């Protein structure tokens, strides 16, 4: 099975104190530590497991600036066979539709049976997977938390539904799936993997290579524009419990008792 996994380089929330910049248009990006979007690791792990079971290959692709190369390389060290970076000045400032557009062009250059994305990104809107599927006119399933290859034409996927229920679907290939965390346990990158990919050249495709008119993507093509970015004021009545975990639990129980939540 030929699988393409779309991955994104995002600020690492476990490493940074995220601050909002002065003019309130974005976060302060100057000194951030970046890593692979958490959800994407699950998607890559799933792809590697499918490949190991039924054969084929895994390609990772990222839309981003030249620094995004490091996340592509990292996912290759994890076990993906190929990596592609989609990078062009014209891509900067793309909205979700723009990103999906760029990815669509890359998907059409290859012969993929399956395209995976993360269910969402730390700093995203969870929209790229769905849009990409629509643009390709491929079937789509979101929030996938189990996946089973039936044959080379169909797969079976489980989806998380509100209220803790699960739904099973059969889907025709090719299709796009957005992957939920918990579907597997992403492997760690070992030294052998790192050494394997250390000196591999990762191809970069720009607007020209993909046959994309620059105006249709990037800032000029974006129809969703961010107009403000801020931390909401704390509302009245909210209380943040402090102390050790045990203390917090104790206080919480007390509060619940006091307010009639538990008896």
């Amino acid at each position: 099975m030929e699988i393409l996994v779309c991955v994104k380089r995002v600020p690492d929330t476990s490493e940074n104190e995220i601050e909002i910049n002065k003019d309130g248009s974005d976060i302060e990006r100057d000194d951030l530590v970046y890593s692979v979007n958490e959800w994407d690791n699950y998607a890559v792990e799933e792809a590697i497991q499918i490949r190991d079971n039924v054969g084929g290959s895994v390609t990772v692709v990222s839309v981003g600036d030249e620094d995004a190369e490091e996340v592509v390389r990292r996912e290759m060290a994890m076990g993906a066979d190929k990596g592609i970076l989609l990078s062009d000045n014209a891509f900067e400032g793309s909205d979700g539709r723009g990103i999906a557009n760029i990815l669509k062009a890359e998907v059409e250059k290859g012969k993929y049976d399956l395209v995976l994305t993360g269910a969402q990104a730390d700093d995203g809107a969870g929209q790229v997977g769905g849009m990409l599927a629509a643009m390709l006119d491929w079937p789509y399933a979101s929030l996938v938390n189990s996946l089973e290859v039936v044959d080379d034409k169909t797969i079976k996927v489980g989806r998380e539904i509100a209220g803790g229920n699960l739904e099973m679907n059969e889907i025709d290939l090719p299709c796009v799936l957005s992957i939920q965390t918990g579907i597997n346990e992403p492997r760690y990158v070992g030294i052998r993997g790192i050494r394997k990919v250390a000196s591999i050249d990762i191809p970069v495709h720009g607007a020209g290579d993909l046959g994309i008119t620059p105006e249709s993507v990037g800032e000029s093509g974006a129809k969703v524009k961010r107009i403000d970015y801020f931390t909401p004021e704390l509302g009245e009545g909210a209380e943040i419990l402090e102390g050790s975990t045990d203390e917090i639990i104790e206080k919480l129980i007390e509060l619940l008792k006091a307010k009639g939540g538990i008896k």
Partner: protein
Amino acid sequence: MAQFIADRRDIEFVLHEQLQVEKLSKHERFAEFNKKTVDMIVNEARNLAVKEILPTQLLGDQEGCKFENGKVTVPESFHRAYEIIKEGEWVAMPESLEWGGQGMPMVVSLAASDYLVGANYAFMMYPGLTQGAGKLIEAFGTDKQKELFLKKMFTGEWTGTMLLTEPEAGSDVGALTTSAVKNSDGTYSISGSKIFISSGEHDLAENIIHPVLARIEGAPAGTKGISLFLVPKIWVNDDGSLGEFNDVVCTGIEEKMGIHGNVTCSISLGGKGECKGTLLGEENKGMRAMFLMMNEARLLVGLQGFTCASTAYMYAVNYARQRLQGKHLLKMRDENAPSVPIIQHPDVRRQLITMKAYVEGMRSLIYYVGMCEDNVKVEKSAKEKEKYQGIIDVLIPIAKGYVTDKAFEVCNHGLQIYGGYGYIKEYPLEQLVRDCRITMIYEGTNGIQAMDLLGRKLGLNKGKPVMDLLGEMQASIAAAREIEDLKELADLVQEAVNKLGEVGLHMGASAMSPDVMKAFAFAYPFMEVTGDIVMAWMLLWRATVAAHKLEKGARKKDAAFYEGQLKSAEFFVHSILPTTMGKCNAILTTNGAAVEIMEDSFGG
């Protein structure tokens, strides 16, 4: 700051800006290790350390190891962590590819270990000792021994230990009595009792390979009669299959102050007369083999202590930013002034900057020694190789003895900054202080390290290694002098280096004179002042790099980091180095009270 092991920016600074490890990739041996690869390795080590190993630190301390019916179980959480370390091939990073190592520069493996060891060093002792034991086999083993053991060890499938200590043979390994008798098939029957054996018995691996120091029957007394043997817990047949249990019995484990997750075993060898081993290296050359391996083992103990300090600093600085207590000193009289975070109090800042300066200086020193190890490997000329080897030899007692002493002090400051909470088990400093303490004792007590510096290293090769080290310091001072703002600091460090030269000459002469007892009473202070001056050198070197970066213009957080480097150097040179100069004067006086006092006069 969300992970509490090591300052990521500082690790990057030492690797890329201070030591420029990428230079190593110009040599064929390390060609693979370009900046991208180095960064990826260190990042993945961090990732693994934070997500998988750090959570085992507290669990390992609380649960400890259990001894039941001759079997030892390690804390439950260690099993998964060990599998992941094995899978990722983190066991033998700097060892040769041929035998399952990763051929990594030592300095890079130290940076990765900064996170891994920092996340839980009691746990990391299992793979760490395995690597060390494997290294002995690689250096001294026959082809057959390597074939049977090495790959299994460097890949972590089997683990390793080091069996030196006996009840009557601690610091003086030469006093050991474990004996070996040669059998007709070329193996040796071993019998004796060893104590305090780290990772001596556990349930993490199928087999445990013990390098054992023992005396062959009839061999000379003392260190000249000691040989090294390989004694597997389960015998390994010639075809590599596992044979019978080898009469290596764990008879008990210790209850300890710290590192509860790493088991400390009493081991009886040949209690039933059925313990066999094979000779590793030559008969009666066991101590020589140990000496060759000692540098690296001591550097790793230095790293263990250091990572406790690094972690303690991370916790303390974070706590000091959050803990509100007391008014700002300048608003003491204002009844309505709010409480401020304790990081605003001068006395707390004094402790924090003390911790910061030591942690930074120690990190640079440890990585620098690692880089010297790499230079020994890649330098072409015998002269250069010898130079770096000499510098390593002189710096090892500092990197072990001085570093672990100061690391403990740093942990202690950290605990103090937490106030009462520091003394409470629910907060992390209490464990760090306990865990750190043993690093001052094992792998040669720090007293023994000081004697090594004075007795062996100072006069090594007619003093050339010491001169080479002073030469390196001079070069850094000269570079600092080029920068207007650092001139004063550079001059003060120069004065201290000159003083160290004077103290070194004096100590060398005293140790060879009738005053030898007095001289050795000052071995420890001599190690301490040498260490202080090495710290001053490293901090000045860092400040020089930082000043250049600031001159070129740095981004916001980077600028704060570089300014912090200038302040560490300034603090150390102005607030700590003067006491070092005083200690140097005390050494030069070499007062004899400590050795002249009558034993009875100690009272007690």
